[in-house]
């Protein structure tokens, strides 16, 4: 007994030594890592600048943050234009391919728009602190990382990297009870969800003996059939990301947090953070579990159907615009999940992934724009009640029209962007040629009509209702907000009228090491 113990310990030691023995310095492709590095440098600069600058000049921080994000875009562009398609590092644990580049660009631009939305909002708020941009950049850095991660460890680290600053940002308005509550709820549930996910990861590691996603995939193929541990692990991991993308029934934090958090952060959470969740989920599904589609497809099918339906149905009842958009974004999440539910059938993976990316691109632009309008309107009304939007068009036609564009895009009405996303999703559903696909597509179709109920009610408020307090002074919109609105609106329109652009990005965003390439 003892000897066997000893020999076992020896064996362990040996393996450890053996594993360490061929240690070589990993080759680091600095070009590939340049976006992350620019971001990291930028956030340090922001932090230091905050320390050493006096109050009156701190407005420059937002510009710094903005330039950092745009600066990080440069290497993304050069990487994209460079011939090398795939840059793999650390034995394939960190991969920069077209997929990650497209998604990185999405995160960076979304982050930039959030910075634009934030600048005046945060400055005029009493909670003005330099750390705000620092945290925001950190979170974005986490997202940028997650898009390249192909290993459980790096995914986990990146996920926490993006989440932890987000918890703090949600509770940003320190003396506001609602903001506290938003932060605490988000935090506790987020941590709980990631704990559950970690438990799932540990099980997966146990059966695959590797944290590398590709190896996970291979282990599933190798064992031939799926063990219960596999199934449990996969479900728990998906739950972690389902929380992140606020899929029903893991959505409960979303409305509360969205309502309590500062508006730009809500925009950030509902767009970038959610996108990060989808991206990681897609990476896992396509790289790690492609053979386990029997497990996750029904699960995601149910999640998608529930998410669309419950999100919509509850959104119909909302009187608070932010809460309504929160539920609407829950529902939109269901549409993103939709193609994933049939991704394994009939080689639907490629079109499902494309649909996810396209949907996220367009949804990001539209939802950010919508939040821009919400921020602009609340500058005047100081309220988030939908009824306070009455007659918006009569005194702020520009904002009214923009809100209409964004709402219509969310509702999926051509030629505004949203329809392209929905179209791609439906197309992917039908590619599967399966009962699963058709039935979910039908649910989706019904939901897309129902959704108009609440989007329409806001439009109605804007166009057809009288101004509630009779105050028709026009709304002054600061420059940065204006820029954000124009940028998002233009994107929404262009992607809607030239869907080829969105589709193109969706198509080049092929996951390396998935679908055999």
């Amino acid at each position, binding site marked *: 007994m003892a000897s066997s113990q000893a020999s076992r310990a020896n064996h362990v030691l040996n393996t450890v030594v053996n594993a360490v023995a061929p240690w070589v310095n990993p080759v680091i492709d600095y070009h590939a890592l340049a976006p992350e590095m620019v971001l990291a440098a930028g956030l340090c600069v922001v932090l230091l600048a905050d320390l050493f600058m006096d109050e009156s000049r701190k407005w420059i921080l937002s510009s710094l943050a903005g330039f950092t994000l745009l600066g990080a875009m440069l290497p993304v562009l050069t990487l994209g234009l460079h011939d090398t398609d795939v840059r793999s590092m650390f034995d394939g644990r960190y991969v920069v391919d077209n997929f990650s580049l497209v998604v990185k660009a999405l995160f960076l631009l979304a982050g930039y728009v959030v910075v634009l939305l934030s600048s005046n909002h945060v400055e005029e708020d009493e909670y003005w602190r330099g750390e705000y941009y620092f945290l925001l950049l950190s979170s974005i850095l986490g997202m940028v990382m997650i898009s390249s991660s192909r290993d459980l460890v790096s995914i986990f680290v990146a996920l926490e990297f993006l989440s932890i600053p987000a918890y703090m940002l949600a509770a940003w308005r320190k003396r506001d009870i609602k903001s506290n509550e938003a932060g605490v709820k988000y935090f506790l549930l987020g941590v709980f969800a990631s704990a559950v996910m970690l438990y799932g990861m540990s099980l997966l590691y146990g059966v695959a003996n590797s944290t590398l996603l590709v190896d996970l995939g291979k282990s599933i193929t190798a064992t031939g059939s799926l063990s219960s541990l596999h199934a449990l692990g996969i479900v728990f991991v998906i739950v972690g990301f389902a929380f992140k993308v606020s899929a029903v029934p893991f959505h409960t934090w979303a409305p509360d947090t969205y309502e309590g958090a500062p508006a730009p952060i809500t925009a950030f959470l509902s767009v970038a953070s959610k996108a990060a969740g989808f991206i990681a989920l897609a990476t896992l599904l396509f790289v790690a579990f492609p053979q386990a589609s029997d497990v996750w497809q029904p699960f995601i099918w149910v999640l998608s159907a529930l998410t669309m339906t419950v999100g919509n149905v509850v959104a119909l009842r909302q009187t608070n615009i932010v809460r309504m958009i929160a539920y609407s974004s829950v529902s939109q999440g269901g549409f993103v999940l939709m193609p994933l539910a049939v991704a394994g059938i009939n080689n639907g993976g490629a079109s499902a992934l494309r649909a996810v990316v396209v949907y996220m691109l367009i949804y990001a632009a539209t939802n950010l724009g919508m939040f821009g309008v919400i921020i602009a309107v609340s500058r005047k009304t100081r309220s988030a009640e939908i009824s306070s939007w009455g007659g918006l068009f009569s005194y702020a036609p520009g904002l009214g029209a923009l809100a209409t564009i964004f709402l219509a895009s969310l509702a999926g009405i051509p030629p505004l962007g949203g329809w392209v996303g929905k179209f791609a999703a439906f197309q992917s559903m039908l590619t599967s040629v399966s009962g699963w696909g058709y039935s979910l597509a039908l649910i989706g179709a019904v939901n*897309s009509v129902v959704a108009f109920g609440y989007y329409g009610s806001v439009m109605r408020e804007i166009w057809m209702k009288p101004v509630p307090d009779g105050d028709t002074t026009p709304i002054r919109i600061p420059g940065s907000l204006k820029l954000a609105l124009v940028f998002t609106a233009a994107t929404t329109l262009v992607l809607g009228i030239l869907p080829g652009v969105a589709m193109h990005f969706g198509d080049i965003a092929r996951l390396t090491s998935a679908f055999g390439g």
Partner: protein
Amino acid sequence: MEMLRDENWVLSVGTFLPMVGVLLLLIVPKANDQLIKMVALFTSIATLAVGVFTLFKFNFDQAGSMQFVAENKWIPLIKSSYFIGVDGISLPMYVLSMVITLLVVIYSLNHIPSPGNPKAFFILMLVLQTGMAGTFIAQDLILFFVFFELVLLPMYFMIGVWGGENRQYASLKFFLYTMFGSALMLVAFLALFFKTGAESFAIPYLVENGGAIARNVQIWIFAGMFIGFAVKVPMFPFHTWLPDAHTQAPTQGSVILAAILLKLGTYGFIRIAIPILPEAAKAWAPYIGGLAVIGIIYGALGCLAQTDMKRLIAFSSVAHMGYVMLGVSTLTDFGMSAAMFGMVAHGLITGMLFFLAGSIKERYHTLEISRLGGLLTQMPRMGWILGMASMASLGLPGLAGFWGEFPAILSAYNPADGLNVTVFRVYMVIAALGTVLAAAYLLWLFQRVAFGEPKAEFAGGAHGADDHGSGHGHSQFEDVNKFEWIAWTPLLIAIVVFGVVPNLLFSMIDPAVHGILAGFKG
């Protein structure tokens, strides 16, 4: 089918010119009413000029071929392209949409409905124009879908903002109905795409390959399209949005809705559903025909029950579109041509009727039939125009309405091979019965509104119902004014001209219809 690609910039220019107007309008300050109106007017004139140019350049000898075809990459990934062209079916509707828009703009020059804001109003109208024109030229399903949906929002706002008292309900109903239909339609388009090998969304391609789809699959795909288009037409029992939308919409909205928007549905049947899915079309035809004749009788009965003039006209659309759909459902070239003619004729005539209803409402502030009367005494010209429009609407020979109605009935006697002749002959008789009811409700309307003496409340002139009637506080109501004359005369002339020389249209439509039905021959 042969494609003529000469001068293929024409259609794009004609379709998107209104958007240039929209951009111009965006930069015109809101307060500058005159400039806004002028920009809108000149945009629509310029658009129509392009339309007329198209008409002149159109090769009528080859009306069956697509002309001015332009094909560009659009969404290469899903194999959808910017593919446009017109043939004898598209062209009349395409030009009609431009004409109607121009007339509506002219009418709007002094008839901006409450709550004003001409800038937004004209912008919406021009966006609407692009959507309508685009739908008629699109030769790619996805492009078609985009244009088809593009008209939705402007119309929604037009009803919801500038409409009557119950406008919010009506606009939402309109919107949800159409959304519902188009969601299913989109699903059907996608199914079609995949079932033809996921090669292309181009209509000509699908026409060639759609016939190969298994029959029962065709039937299901057709069902999706059917609902999408039938809502728009609207066919019984999907019509209930129409009376509300029409009643509540501002005059301009009603006119555009009646004249063009409803035709998007029937056009969809003729251009897309039937040629691509011939087998399904045959299977569905008896049901379409049945719903069409139900619509004819039902719409007429609905009319008889109305107390509101505008609502009555709205219901009459249900009946008239029933004739169009009856023609379509015969699947014969004859029936299709009749349907196409019916579409144009209904557009002109019902558009005219809605103009009249709008002007009557503007003067009397009510459209309650029981409160109206003696229109001919107070405004003889408007009264006679109403009479003429009613006569045209009830299908009097020599006016345009007849050529939509009579050939449709005629065609039902001899439907395409493979359809049940007895059933269609029964339809024919029922449809003929519908003409009697049409005469009943229209003449009854005319008798009650135009004949007799004015009711006491209006007998004294404009002082009757309104308290802000200072604008026309003469002892008489103002008869047709110059804006109305300008807007209406072309319609009236067209009603007569098409009634007397139907060949103007038929010669254009006929060859194109042959192409549509090519799938049934082989």
